[in-house]
């Protein structure tokens, strides 16, 4: 890992405390994966914002039900000044799929959160509008197409 990555990991370790779980570095793709508690996501985005002076780009959010009891969320970020690819990962149990919405700290997440909500049933608390985005209006309630049985 280069100096910039180490710095960010340290900032996460210090800033999130218990909320920071672990990290991995994909040397081939030069991508840094940071695993955090779901409650620490807002703070994590604030730390990223601080690290690059607001010059970052939210590429997307992937919500994945891999068959277990949890849904995994991956936030893909690109930090412009450091030229750094960062993936922030958090998990939420299917029994309690609630997360803090990040729209107030990162407005670019507005549509991605809506999509994850309708496809997987994750509720983003504080999101201004969690209505249907891709699915038809007559799609049944509480049926999530990308959920596994």
């Amino acid at each position, binding site marked *: 890992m280069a100096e910039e990555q180490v710095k960010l990991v340290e900032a996460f370790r210090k800033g999130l405390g218990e909320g920071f779980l672990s990290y991995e570095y994909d040397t081939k793709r030069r991508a840094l994966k940071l695993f955090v508690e779901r409650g620490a996501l807002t703070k994590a985005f604030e730390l990223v914002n601080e690290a690059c002076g607001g010059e970052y780009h939210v590429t*997307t959010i992937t919500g994945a039900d891999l068959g277990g009891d949890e849904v995994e969320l991956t936030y893909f970020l690109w930090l412009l000044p450091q030229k750094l690819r960062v993936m922030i990962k958090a998990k939420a149990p299917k029994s309690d799929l609630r997360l803090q919405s990040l729209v107030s700290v990162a407005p670019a997440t507005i549509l991605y959160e809506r999509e994850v909500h309708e496809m997987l049933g994750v509720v983003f608390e504080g999101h201004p509008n969690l209505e249907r985005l891709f699915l038809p209006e007559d799609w049944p309630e509480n049926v999530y197409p990308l959920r596994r049985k």
Partner: protein
Amino acid sequence: MSTTKVIVGPVHPALHEPERFVFKVDGEVVVDVEPRLGYVHRGIEKALTERSFTQGLYLIERICGICNVAHTLTAVQAIENAFNIEPPKRAKYLRTIVHELNRIHSHLLLLGVACELIGFDTLFMLIWRDREAVMDIIEMVTGNRVMSAYNIIGGVRRNVSDHEVLEMKKVLEALVEKVKQYKEVFAEDPTIRARFADVGRLSRAKALALGAVGPTARGSGVKVDVRAEEPYAAFDEVPLNVVVYEEEDSWARLMVRIDETLESARVIEECLDKMPTGPVRVRVPEVAPQSSEGFSVVEAPRGELIHHVYTEKGSDKPLRYRVRTPTYANIPSVCEMLKGGYVADIPAALVSIDPCFSCTDRVALVDVRTSERVSVDLLTLARRYGR
């Protein structure tokens, strides 16, 4: 204040694929915009988890016809990342060449459509005439004009001959001369300046905050280009000059595309000169060798495109497949662009992000006070108010 709702779409805006926008207008000024996506939602992400990696590749190609090469390239790179495979060097160069040819044809297509939308039909026809030459070389190299099915996991499907390399250089040389002329027209022509300059403003700060990608971001002075910053395929050996315009309007976004067309032609020529000899593909396992995840980010013609795949050891199907296309990322930005602008400028601002939605061009106007509904053709709307 009495505001009127203007519903644009779902079968409409500017080009390709349907999408609905509900505009709240006060007289001629757009006050607010609410997008509604999903009219061509085909459930591809789910369908991909029911198909083998190779079968899936043909479905992925059909996510978007215009930038099909960008999609297959991203997909094979993401799967190679998860499988831990390295394609041969010559294949990486060939991928870059076809990827850039695809960008040239896509940019020329949009520039032509933008001209047509403002009633500049002569330039539209000239640009599309020259685009045909690029379609022909795509056909020569890949065997097909549009759906090239060129990228496969582990390399590319076919090689190019020396004769084809010479032909490509000849066509590109002629094209570059033409595009340079068009650049002058776009830079100076009063009609184009009047319709696109200062229309659909998107400030640099907003572009960054709303996650704008590709020419939309670069037209607002944000220097992001995946090819330069996270080099893939042959871009680590063929450096790219990133095109950025600071004007923050529709005109700047079109100028970015013209300059990028020229830059793509330069990249292809450099690739043709530097391309090493050797095999163009390696054998790959049919099933995932490990439970893993892979992703790939590519600069598609419309901007940053990402594919993210989870694999399961011993399975020939992905566990989860995620695609985020560039137009999707640009939706919040285009809504911002339209706010505060005139109804007549809606097409000019929409077309500047090169949206991948409908080509049926229809607009419904609804007056909320009387519930009176009027349907008009977008082209009529553009022409009635735009000229």
